[in-house]
């Protein structure tokens, strides 16, 4: 067992958990923050994506003890209290989800991605910040699987927010 303290969505949370507990299970099982989803537990689907110190990460691959003191943003904390994040609004307007199970991961991933900049594997000119075209979005969001097949609308929603 270990004592773990995190800043989660702006609030300090301390829990005592099995040292094997992933950040994902800590959020879901110990803090009742079930918005973050478990699709594979192996870093293969992106459903568990959260922001750790502002960068997107698969929380199923993060051991909670290793992130003691870190600042975590989950889908529950993306918006600003009563107001949803612009990405959340766009996802609703563009119907960028169906079952909704991949959605929290898509949203956190998109939020992290929009803050990233820099070239990607499909960028022709590797020296600068490329414009965020649909092709760049598809590449950068490729780690977030959606079995319902909402990609067309996910890309449109993110494009709309990034404009």
């Amino acid at each position, binding site marked *: 067992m270990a004592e773990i303290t995190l800043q989660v969505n702006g609030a300090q949370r301390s829990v005592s958990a*099995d040292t*094997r*507990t992933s950040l994902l*299970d800590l959020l*879901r*099982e110990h803090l*009742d*923050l*079930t*918005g*973050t*989803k*478990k*699709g*594979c*537990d*192996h870093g*293969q*689907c992106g*459903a568990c994506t959260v922001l750790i110190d502002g960068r997107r990460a698969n929380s199923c691959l993060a051991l909670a003890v290793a992130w003691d003191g870190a600042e975590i943003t*989950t*889908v*529950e904390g*993306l*918006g600003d209290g009563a107001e*949803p994040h612009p990405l*959340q609004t766009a*996802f*609703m*307007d563009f*119907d960028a*989800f*169906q*079952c*909704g*199970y*991949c*959605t*929290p991961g898509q*949203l956190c991933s998109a939020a992290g991605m929009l803050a990233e900049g820099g070239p990607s594997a499909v960028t022709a000119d590797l020296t600068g910040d490329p414009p965020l075209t649909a092709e760049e*979005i*598809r*590449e950068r*969001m*490729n780690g*977030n*699987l*959606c*079995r*319902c*097949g*909402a*990609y*067309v*609308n*996910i*890309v449109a929603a993110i494009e709309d927010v990034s404009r």
Partner: protein
Amino acid sequence: MNRVEGRDKVTGRARYAYEYPAEDVAYAYAVQSPIAHGRIRSIDASEALATPGVLAVLSSADPPALGSRDDAELALFQTHEVAYHGQIVAAVVATTSETAREAAQYAVRIEYDAEPHHVRLRTDHCGLYRPDKVNPAFPTDTEQGDVAAGLARAAVTIDATYTTPTEHNNPMEPHASMAVWEENGDLTLFDSIQGASDDRDTIASVLGLPPERVRVISPHVGGGFGSKGTTRPNAILAALAARAVGRPVKIALTRQQMFDVTGYRTPTIQRVRLGADAAGRLTAITHDVVEQSSTIKEFAEQTATPTRVMYAAPARRTTHRLVRLHVPTPAWMRAPGEAPGMWALESAMDELAIAAGIDPIELRVLNEPAVEPESGLPFSSRNLVACLREGARRFGWANRDPEPGIRLEGRWLTGTGVAASTYPARRRPSRASAAVEDGDFVIRIAAADIGTGARTVLTGIAAQTLGSPAERVRVEIGDSALPRASLAGGSMGTASWGSAVVRACEALLKNGAEGTADTTEDVESDSGFARHAFGAQFAEVRVDIDTGEVRVPRLLGVFAAGRVLDEKLGRSQFIGGMTMGLGMALMEETVVDERSGAFLNHDLAQYHIATCADVRDIEAVWIEEEDPHLNPMGAKGIGEIGIVGTAAAIANAVYHATGRRIRDLPITPPKLLG
């Protein structure tokens, strides 16, 4: 309209089965068989039971009492026999999920007597037999006219075998359950399921309880595509484990376990023969299918049934043969029957068009039947030709040069292809109630929203019937305590539930206070017509001449599915199906290891589904179709037709691009380079 539960889903408030809080909850983890066939010789759970935090071990060493063992996939821990690799043979219940998993993996010692196993589907297997019916109740074989004569007098014939691999549904939400036994002996089960009413009945029967003692709650379901259409062992396991330890118990299958115990699409081997006269009119069609089931339960996919619906021909035959292997039981995966069957038929039609020198669209138009070919019933509506024509116009088919393998752009060979889609338009009896509460309308029905948008569409249907703004209508679904409803499957959800909701709303309007409806009689009188949705799928592909990589820059689906009740959500359903069809065409395949009998690539890193970067321009449109013979909404189901025909359209485009005809899905680079 925007999804009514959209806000809950994008803010993380929507809870799925595993995510309900419970006092003192314990966790179960399943132990699976490492052999594909044989017997358990001994089970030693002492080390597990001695592990701090472990509360119980369940296994056939002490079979739990069940009410029914009819479904061998659900009759857990009743026998020492092992029927397939990965079958659940024991389970550990512990105070934390980490402890349960560790003990299940390392501290339950099971010894086996293995016997030889057979896991490969072959057309010459000695165990091939003719099942009594195919899913759900179609005739196994059909034959009309003189097939031999029809083929003999044909000017052009095609005789080809098309195969599809094992495919897995892989909804993003792993199958999960939480069981809570109440003090009075009632069971509440939070379950990831496509139909709470049927799930409740099945669980009650397996556990030997009257159905009214069981309640299934499942307001949000993270996809299913058929795998959550029937009760899965996780639900029974949660209930048995909770009974054993006297606490609520949660279980979520791991992604790997899902491959073994939540169903899959059977591999198929399909021989299609087509004969046509010099003008391109079919003289004969045969479609002979070989597929598999497990040794403990029969599931016979209705793969050749679309061939009974699609084209006119005076002589025709369809057959299904099954072999029982040491594999898990296959089950429904999005458009069972139509998805694999139309891949074969529509590939063969493309081959016939090329052999006869006829445009593939014109070939289909030429063979359009006046009535449903095998039943002779009139179609309630059939607008395949309109879909083909509209698609050709939008896609820019007119200037297509049919010559294969001649369009080289840089390293890429490009091509286009077309295929038809079809899916039955049926409905099942359901009940609903409508009431006025605090000035708002409340609709209650045990429907399921697995991502289809059921909650939203039913809200729209009720609002329209009541003449009320949608904001004043609240629809309660996903709970077996609500009026009994059919499951979300067979693209029947909206048609079945919508019919009941309309009738309940009409009853409410009549008496002002509350309306109830039961559509059993309405549905039973649905006869006299062949009811199907149709569509045309167009694909553009690029094939890398060096690597064999196939990309799909463009997919267009044009559908005729009655009235599309919600434009935004309807488009998402079609596109979602087509996206899964793209995966079926190019990447989806579960590989079976013949030595161990196991599914080898049982995770999302190795079982490839279409990802964001695989999908470019996918568009779905539909034509206006008035059909008075369906249901009060005039709608045909649209959850599955999107996947039907996509793989054939892509394969036909790959042929057009490369001149290579791939008859074995998925179309992977080695097959194009080999």
